[in-house]
């Protein structure tokens, strides 16, 4: 168990059920279920998974953009759901900031980019004299003269993502939630953004919750990692251990299926391709049971609990 003073944010039994359609066309979709994790001070924690695993829904719930159906989010021990007043919410947002997947969508295309930086400075009660905007831009390797008076479509994706990070840094947050921050940034610029997270952690003591589908950058940048599948975290622990020695059959399959940028590691064995089950979300037991090579009878009816195996959490009956 970690020392609670070290914890920044923690979720307990977090669940989100979406109601799709209205009236008679209503149906339910459990997007996130029983998600428990925390992010410590001075660490980069990764939530990884394929599209549709619920990782972005988790980030929206952490930021208060979505209300959890069940469960709680605690920031420094306080339940975030109790922040009702605008002032309290702003106090929370000052500490927890976020950047998004598509840098071209992060800023309104009809507004000048710098207005967001100055808005942030003003709304969080800092005066222009504090030079917070200039300082934040400097931290991401940009100069105010490059940014001033220009519209989003005058920048490249990489530049916009830096400006987005700069905007988030103006409030001097303790936690930065980065939802797929490099998936739409060009390959040659990708690592400069990822490296920035390391710098933030080491030099500014900002923790980062890195949400991605890319295991290679996750391995490169993070300290701990949680693997999500169909709404659950199915394996969580030290990044070195989880990714280099995965225990959950899904994590193993995921790691095996992601191509590596190394021509000497071409796939040699063939896989037999079963059609993916679209109904995996509806499963009662382990959601991976339909595809798991080690499937047992109890997997089909019972969701495995959070088990401990080799210094990590695994949700798999194999490790009972």
């Amino acid at each position, binding site marked *: 168990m970690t020392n609670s003073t070290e914890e920044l944010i923690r979720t307990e039994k977090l669940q989100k059920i979406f109601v799709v359609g209205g009236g008679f066309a209503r149906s339910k979709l459990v997007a996130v279920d029983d998600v428990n994790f925390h992010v410590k001070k001075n660490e980069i924690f990764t939530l990884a998974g*394929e*599209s*549709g695993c619920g990782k972005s829904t988790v980030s929206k719930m952490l930021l208060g953009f979505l209300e959890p159906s069940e469960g709680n989010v605690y920031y420094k021990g306080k339940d975030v759901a109790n922040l009702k007043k605008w002032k309290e919410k702003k106090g929370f947002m000052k500490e927890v900031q976020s950047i998004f997947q598509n840098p071209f969508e992060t800023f309104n295309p009809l507004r000048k980019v710098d207005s967001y930086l100055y808005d942030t400075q003003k709304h969080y009660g800092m005066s222009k004299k504090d030079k917070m905007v200039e300082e934040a831009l400097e931290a991401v390797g940009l100069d105010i003269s490059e940014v001033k008076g220009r519209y989003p479509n005058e*920048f*490249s*994706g*990489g*530049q916009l993502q830096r400006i987005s990070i700069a905007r988030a840094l103006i409030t001097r947050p303790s936690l930065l939630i980065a939802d797929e921050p490099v998936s739409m940034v*060009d*390959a*040659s*610029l*990708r*690592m*400069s953004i*990822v*490296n920035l997270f390391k710098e933030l952690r080491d030099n500014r003591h900002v923790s980062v919750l890195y949400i991605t589908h*890319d*295991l*290679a*950058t996750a*391995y*490169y940048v993070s300290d701990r990692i949680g693997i999500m599948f169909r709404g659950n975290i199915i394996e969580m622990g030290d990044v070195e251990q989880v*990714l*280099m020695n995965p225990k959950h059959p899904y994590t193993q*399959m*995921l*790691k095996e*299926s*992601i*191509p*590596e*940028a*190394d*021509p*000497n*590691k*071409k*796939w040699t064995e*063939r*896989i037999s*391709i079963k*059609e*993916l089950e*679209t109904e995996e979300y509806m499963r009662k037991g382990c959601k991976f049971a339909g595809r798991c090579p080690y499937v047992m009878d109890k997997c089909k009816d019972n969701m495995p609990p959070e088990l401990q195996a080799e210094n990590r959490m695994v949700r798999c009956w194999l490790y009972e």
Partner: protein
Amino acid sequence: MLNILKTENLKSYYIFETPTEKKEVKAVNDVSIDIEEDKIYGVAGESGCGKSTFLKTVCGLAEPPLRIVGGTIYYLVNGKYVDITKLSQEEYRKLRWEYISYIPQGSMSALNPIIRVKESFKDFVTAHKKIKDEQKDFEEPLRKHLNALGLPMRVLKSYPHQLSGGMRQRVTIALATILNPRIILADEPTTALDVVAQRAVIQLLKDIQSLQKNTIILVTHDMAVHANIADRMLIMYAGVFVEEADTEELFENPLHPYTKFLIGSLPKMGDKSYKVSAPGSPPSLANLPQGCPFHPRCPYVMDICKNERPALVETKPSHKVSCFLNSKERIQND
């Protein structure tokens, strides 16, 4: 080895004309390249470098605002080189699918949503072949083809929306290869698929190539996909190819400074060593710098780079690069 596709000084621009101004986006800017038979080529580059436009252009799909401004595109058809930019629409239409085939970007919606998959196959086949005997000329070869590619027969009766994304993509690929084309142009065929489907698509493309012995030009930004499937690679930057080499050679000994950054910054599992990105940002294709397009970002920039454009030349056996560090040959300005 024969070249199945040759382009010479190919220029393909997006031309936007409004009453007040004219804007040219030089997406393919003077490209001369040879593509050999019976190989999988990988074209890599970042968004907006012109790689998709290159593919569309050589596929003869340039439609306004995209226009071929100059140059030639030769295909080797029945032992003779044919310049498709000089062909009439009808002559070129006959080459499609039996000779040149195409797998589009985001081909999740490449199939007509309101007809059954089999109907789509039939439309594409009848456009090029007369079907006299429905069973013998259409049904049987179709079944054989799907069998060989390991696709279930039930997809034929389905509507596209009833298939999963990965299955739809594989059906599209089957459709593209039904007439055994000599060259397949594939634009980001694995993007937006989940990992298992992505692997299945890569496997399928490899199978088709070894089965039909054709040439595949695969465009994707994902270097990991290239590493897995491509025999030979082309690196594109700001509308031109800056490097061409066999995949292993390219990953081990990149010559162009841009390729070096690209390969060097690839994160790998089990490797935590510090990776650096190229400085700066790629230029806008509407506003290219003079000289080598990479010179504003290049750490080895020389005076010549700022004024002259380097040509793509073979500096090592079957390894071409366009950089004045390696060869002084330049593109003549016209």
